[in-house]
């Protein structure tokens, strides 16, 4: 299957010495390196590429670029399948496989094409009109049917096997597009010594030059562009990004660009990203994005075989492919004649050139007549017939109907400068009647357009425009331009007229091909009052498909203008939004997926805990040991109960390194702490620790922790794990913004220290053995005391703090010694049956002791709610003091922290259950609070819970119902003190 019947015998930027084989809908074909999938299929005589979105109309190729609305295919198979990929942008590789879309059972016979018969149903706004009721039918019937009938390709549903990179670039000038204008502008900026990034979506430089038979300084467009690119590559201050589309322009000169690193390969090479997402920050941007050709609206303008004239030229000149054998050219612009000449030069029979203008360039017309081509100036196209195209019906200036048996209709409707990037920050393009196009107009700051993007059509004008844009940009950046001579080129005809439609447009005359929006949809929308471009867009979905309406938009606006009797300058055009081309979500995600979705923080003894078989739990980014299962333990409860009992009866060790740690220094730390905490700190003696509660300025509890005074002017604070960063920010705000006059420095040392809680009645004995040089007596290190020591020659700190309610210590060593310390403690601890415990056992013991933690410090509780109100000092100001006295926050009816025990000792209480008075109806109005934390207490031998209960402090001894309709039956519970165990605190002081 190597015959390529439509391949020209010579020419094109393809490597004819190599043949690539590929498959489309399972059928094998051959092409050459340099081909796109579209050009290779056209070379093989394939005309039908897909079915349209709504009506399932057969569609071919309209364009030769990324603006393609019709020829969308699913590229590759399996997990790498990528739906809705324009065949016009797919670089051919050996073994390529692609599938057509939106057809069933096959592309040639599509059962859904019956949709065309129901076309009146699918007019603009049909969603809003047709399926009004009943509501249920939407879910059951309409939506599934519509989704099956209308649509594009589908995702594979498999995990993307490729990876994506992010990169940043900074430059003085970003030149978007490496066509003639971009190359000239980039070279000027480079010569002026500016840092330049030049990006182009194509694998080759040259842009339109690759599609036209032009000479610059006697070289072909391709040769000239390659030489220019070579020259640019020799500048150290230039970075060229080929296969890279700049898809968005954002504030402060930021641009998003997507580099298709490996999409032209069967699969990325090992270690190679598939795509790279660039953030390019530029002081100035030059849009050398060129212009795309417009179709003309006429009946049957979507038939396979109807193609933009510029695309016909591209297939002839760049790819060596004749998109047909018998061509008709329909044009409103001089550029169409160029395509006619290209066709003649390629020995394709040109049956006629129909120019809607009465006056056509005489030399071009003469050239065509000499080649035996019928010239219809002032002509009209009535309809295109056949699928694929087999006949073109035209009308000449005298009104006579003419039939042409053409299989190719090249359409030249004028040019749209590609200025979408400028509109991303809200800039409105302006209408220029002389070239019948929206252009940049008053350029926004830092941006200019060059060449065809500026509206400078014709090669000589393009080159001059580009140099001028570069010179302006260079001057704006304070550099001197050193202009190089422009290449010598032949002047081209480049006049454009404003003709949007041809013929009656009564049948299917398409404006937006991808979304199947027709001329009659536009007039209907206008009739129904949708007369602004933005309303028109939303009502008809004009320009809302994956191609962003790049070929459709302006035609739609022109029809809107005609239907409303306005000028195009008046209707304006829609506000383009990023991205200019579809960008894979994977590219935005980059490496942040799976385990790399966010960083993982591990404590110093993480590996040790893993070796002990610890189950880990996420605490923010931290991995914390949750419990340490032992052989024979079949449920987590068995492990946790054992860990609690071992700690309460002997000694246990828990890694508490994740608590936030902040060191403060300065003469005024005490004064600052007094303002941060509700209780006083200024009078804290050196060598002592104190528990403190912080409020937010709105009066609710923010965080709690301890502060130890290490030296008269050095203090050490701990925070909860979750609030380590917010507390640091809060302290910095207090000392930098609120009270900058205070002499306080603060630094986070969370990651500098590894800290272990050693808790239980035998903890003192263990530490005495493990740290023989430290006086562990109650007198030397009393409850809430702290000492500095040296361990293995390094500074270490020992605090006598207890979260478990037992005799307990926290031992901190530099983080890099954490693992060694744990090994040491367990080596010594063998004799004491030292047991490692995790966050679950930690939680059980703190619930037994009634200590509030994350579930209670939930941002909705006050200090009084938590039973901590009596800590609040009345002798000083502190953050949150005034707002905490607000009536609603001081209301005695507010839910207060209580303990709950089930009346029936075997019933578990679930956290989240709501509290009702016995006999109360289970409705929201009866709600008296909720359970915040619950566990089984191995110490007490029954389930317990902490809860917030209205008037809770006065209701100890009462019975409540824990109502949990979602997960289980009601549980009767007894209200009591939140401290379940050792409420006198004797165990921790001994």
């Amino acid at each position: 299957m190597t015959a390529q019947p439509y391949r020209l015998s010579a020419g094109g930027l393809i490597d004819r010495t190599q043949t690539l084989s590929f498959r489309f809908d399972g059928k094998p074909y051959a092409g050459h390196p340099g081909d796109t999938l579209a050009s290779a299929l056209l070379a093989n005589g394939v005309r039908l590429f897909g079915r349209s979105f709504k009506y399932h109309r057969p569609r071919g190729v309209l364009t030769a670029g990324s603006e393609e609305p019709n020829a969308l295919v699913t590229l590759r198979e399996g997990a790498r399948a990528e739906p809705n990929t324009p065949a016009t942008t797919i670089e051919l590789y050996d073994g390529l496989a692609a599938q057509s879309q939106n057809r069933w059972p096959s592309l040639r016979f599509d059962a859904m094409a019956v949709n065309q018969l129901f076309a009146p149903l699918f007019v603009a706004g049909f969603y809003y009109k047709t399926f009004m009721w009943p509501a249920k039918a939407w879910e059951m019937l309409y939506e599934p049917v519509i989704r099956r009938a209308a649509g594009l390709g589908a995702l594979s549903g498999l995990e993307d096997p490729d990876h994506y990179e992010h990169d940043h670039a900074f430059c003085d000038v970003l030149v978007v597009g490496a066509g003639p204008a971009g190359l000239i502008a980039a070279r000027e900026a480079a010569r002026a010594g500016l840092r330049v990034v030049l990006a182009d979506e194509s694998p080759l430089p040259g842009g339109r030059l690759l599609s036209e038979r032009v000479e610059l300084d006697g070289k072909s467009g391709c040769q000239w562009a390659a030489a220019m690119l070579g020259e640019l590559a020799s500048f150290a201050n230039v970075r060229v990004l080929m296969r890279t589309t700049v898809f968005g322009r954002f504030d402060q000169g930021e641009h998003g660009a997507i580099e298709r690193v490996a999409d032209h390969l069967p699969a990325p090479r090992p270690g190679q990203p598939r795509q790279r997402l660039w953030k390019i920050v530029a002081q100035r941007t030059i849009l050398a994005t060129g212009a795309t050709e417009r179709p003309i609206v006429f009946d049957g303008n979507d038939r396979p075989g109807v193609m933009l004239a510029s695309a016909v030229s591209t297939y002839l000149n760049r790819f060596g492919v004749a998109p047909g054998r018998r061509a008709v050219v329909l044009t409103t612009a001089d550029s169409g004649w160029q395509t006619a000449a290209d066709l003649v030069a390629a020995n394709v029979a040109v049956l006629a050139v129909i120019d809607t203008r009465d006056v056509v360039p005489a030399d071009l017309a003469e050239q065509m007549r000499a080649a035996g081509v019928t010239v219809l100036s002032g002509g009209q196209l009535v309809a295109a017939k056949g699928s694929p195209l087999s006949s073109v019906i035209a009308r000449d200036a005298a009104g006579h109907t003419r039939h042409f048996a053409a299989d190719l209709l090249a359409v030249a409707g004028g040019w749209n400068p590609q200025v979408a990037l400028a509109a991303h920050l809200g800039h409105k393009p302006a209408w220029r009647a002389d070239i019948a196009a929206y252009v940049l107009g008053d350029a926004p700051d830092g941006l200019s357009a060059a060449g065809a993007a500026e509206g400078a059509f014709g090669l000589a004008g393009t080159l001059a425009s580009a140099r001028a844009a570069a010179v302006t940009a260079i001057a704006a950046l304070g550099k001197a331009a050193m202009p190089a001579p422009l290449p010598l080129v032949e002047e081209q005809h480049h006049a454009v007229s404003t003709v949007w439609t041809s013929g009656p447009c009564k049948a299917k005359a398409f404006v937006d091909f991808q979304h199947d929006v027709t001329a009659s949809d536009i007039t209907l929308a206008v009739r129904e009052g949708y007369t602004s471009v933005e309303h028109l867009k939303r009502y008809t979905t004009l320009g809302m498909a994956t191609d962003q309406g790049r070929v459709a938009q302006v035609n739609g606006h022109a029809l809107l203008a005609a239907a409303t009797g306005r000028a195009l300058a008046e209707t304006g055009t829609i506000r383009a939004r990023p991205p200019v081309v579809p960008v894979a979500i994977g590219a935005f995600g980059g490496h942040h997926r799976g385990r790399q979705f966010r960083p993982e923080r591990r404590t110093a003894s993480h590996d040790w805990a893993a070796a002990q078989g610890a189950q880990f739990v996420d605490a923010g980014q931290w991995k914390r040991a949750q419990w340490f299962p032992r052989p024979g333990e079949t449920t987590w409860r068995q492990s946790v109960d054992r860990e609690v009992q071992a700690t309460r009866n002997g000694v246990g060790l828990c890694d508490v390194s994740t608590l936030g740690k902040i060191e403060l220094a300065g003469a005024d730390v005490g004064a600052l702490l007094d303002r941060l905490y509700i209780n006083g700190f200024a009078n804290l003696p050196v060598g002592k620790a104190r528990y403190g509660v912080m409020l937010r300025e709105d009066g609710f509890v923010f965080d709690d922790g301890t502060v130890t005074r290490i030296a008269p002017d050095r203090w050490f604070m701990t925070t909860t794990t979750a609030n380590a960063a917010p507390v640091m920010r809060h302290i910095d705000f207090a000392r930098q913004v609120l009270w900058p006059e205070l002499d306080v420095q603060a630094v986070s040392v969370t990651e500098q220290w590894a800290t272990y809680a050693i808790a239980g009645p035998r903890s003192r004995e263990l530490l005495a053995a493990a740290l023989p040089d430290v006086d562990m007596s109650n007198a030397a290190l009393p409850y809430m005391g702290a000492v500095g020591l040296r361990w293995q020659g390094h500074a270490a700190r020992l605090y006598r703090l207890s979260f478990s309610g037992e005799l307990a210590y926290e031992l901190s060593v530099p983080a890099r010694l954490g693992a060694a310390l744990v090994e040491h403690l367990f080596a010594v601890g063998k004799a004491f049956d030292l047991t490692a415990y995790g966050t679950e056992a930690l939680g059980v013991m703190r619930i037994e002791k009634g200590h509030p933690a994350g579930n209670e410090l939930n941002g909705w509780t006050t200090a009084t709610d938590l039973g901590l109100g009596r800590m609040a000092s009345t002798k000083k100001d502190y953050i949150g003091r005034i707002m905490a006295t607000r009536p609603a926050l001081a209301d005695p009816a507010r839910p207060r922290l209580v303990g709950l025990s089930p009346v029936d000792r075997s019933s578990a209480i679930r956290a989240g259950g709501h509290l009702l008075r016995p006999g109360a109806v289970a409705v929201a109005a009866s709600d008296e609070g909720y359970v915040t934390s619950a566990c089984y207490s191995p110490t007490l031998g029954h389930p317990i819970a902490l809860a917030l209960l209205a008037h809770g402090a006065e209701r100890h001894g009462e019975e409540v119902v824990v109502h949990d309709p979602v997960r289980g039956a009601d549980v009767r519970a007894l209200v009591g003190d939140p401290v379940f165990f050792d409420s006198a605190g004797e165990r921790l002081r001994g």
Partner: protein
Amino acid sequence: MRIPCPFCGARDSREFVSRGDAAPVRPAGDEADAMFDYLYLRDNPAGVFEELWYHAQGCRNWLRVRRDTLNHAIAHAELAHAERGA
């Protein structure tokens, strides 16, 4: 968006935490109304706005940033306490 941190240079906005309006000054007295205003009443201008930003992933300085909310143009950024001469 990049913020010109006076300490670190121009840095990506992702390194910063925004607090919003820099104008409110914490009242010193016991007036609940004044504290309420300080806490909850905020202007939300379309245009030039003085805001507080915290360079959390950088130097940890609180900055006073003059930003145009319409186009993110940043006219000025200084250390928050610079104004008070501390």
